[in-house]
């Protein structure tokens, strides 16, 4: 994979369900790697006939982590409600059995962390 060859680590990889033969694929890279990643992807996009490559800067990742997430409904809902209550838009979401990750605007990351601590009584 060309990104890996360029020593760029991709994180929070999300692929949407295909719709009319088209699929969105999103992931995050470190901001330092952003430009290079975009260049590489633009050339790949031409090769495979992808519609477009969109890049967005100034994002940050906030996660709720814990084995208690498994089998306990409402953790994700709680997280989303808290971020929405703070007026923070969620750009991307990815989850595992023990982790819920949201990508948000970087300038709101402190507010998000403080709010989530409060909401989960940490």
């Amino acid at each position, binding site marked *: 994979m060309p990104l890996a060859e360029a020593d760029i680590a991709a994180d929070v990889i999300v692929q949407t369900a295909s719709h009319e033969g088209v699929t969105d694929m999103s992931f995050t890279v470190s901001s330092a790697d952003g430009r290079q990643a975009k260049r590489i992807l633009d050339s790949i996009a031409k090769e495979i006939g992808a519609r477009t490559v969109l890049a967005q800067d100034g994002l940050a990742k906030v996660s709720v982590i814990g084995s208690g997430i498994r089998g306990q409904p409402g953790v994700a809902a*709680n997280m989303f*409600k*808290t971020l929405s209550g703070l007026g923070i838009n969620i750009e991307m979401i990815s989850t595992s059995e023990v982790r819920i990750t949201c990508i948000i605007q970087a300038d709101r990351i*402190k507010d998000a962390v403080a709010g989530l601590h409060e*909401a989960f*009584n940490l």
Partner: protein
Amino acid sequence: MPKIAAVRVPASSANLGPGFDVLALALDLHLEVEARESPKTSIAWDGEGAAEVPLTRKNLLVRSAQEPFTGWTRPLDGLELRVRNHIPIGRGLGSSGAAIVAGITLGAKLRGLRISAQRILELAFPLEGHGDNLAAALYGGFCIAVTENVHRLDWPRRWRAVLFVPDDLSPTHEARRLVPRRPARSDAVFNLGRVAEWVLACSQHDRALVASAMDDRLHQPGRARAYPYLDDVIAAAEQAGALGAALSGAGGSVIAIADRNHDRVAKAMDKAARARSIEGKVMRLAAAAAGAGASLNQRGLSSPRRGSAPGLPRDSAQTR
């Protein structure tokens, strides 16, 4: 040790004549509150409204510190509030809007949450139902509230508000019913032009536009039935040299704008009301350039104006 949060929110005069539920001017008359979380709710209320507002969990300050936060963050146990209020309650001077903004601001600060002024407005809107007073309370100055979108203009510095505030209470919800649900098209057109004139008057400091800009056919004719002194007080203010005058919010206060002769305008308004057997007081106020939103950016939680707010014990004060 429990955190102490403080906020200072200006009064406001909404509508300003034609701008029904849209225009408001922040006034240099404030509600000041210090709060901390405590197992039981208690309120020490100093100033205007001590006999008129409930000093329980039903108090609008307490409700506003709790209800907008329900479902997305932790409820506060109870609130210990020290209130110093200079805003007459239920007289059309934005006391409820100020209380809602104060409550939400304190609720956020006590929970350690940072939310924007815009977000406070969004959380406040369902409690108030209209955005004009909320906008002025949050942003100060002359505000244009397009539901939850606010545009703020600087108020001309030389223009002062002269207010006649009646002694008798006028609950807003009653006066609101006096406003026709379906205004005539000619009246809507009349008001549209005058709202535009207000924006011009304020942005270009054009004193000659104010008299026309404060004229209204949407809500004041209906409300004049509840306030039979309204037309006389407006006419008296204008004859005494005010640039213009209108009902303040849902009344029963009357606001006049003047850039000179403030005393003469005040006396004329008072005299006109008394001729109608209405007792009240007159106030001369500058506009408030800053709203409560200005204190959101302060890291400290102590009183925005040092020593002005009633003190909770300072030794337990803690800033975040």
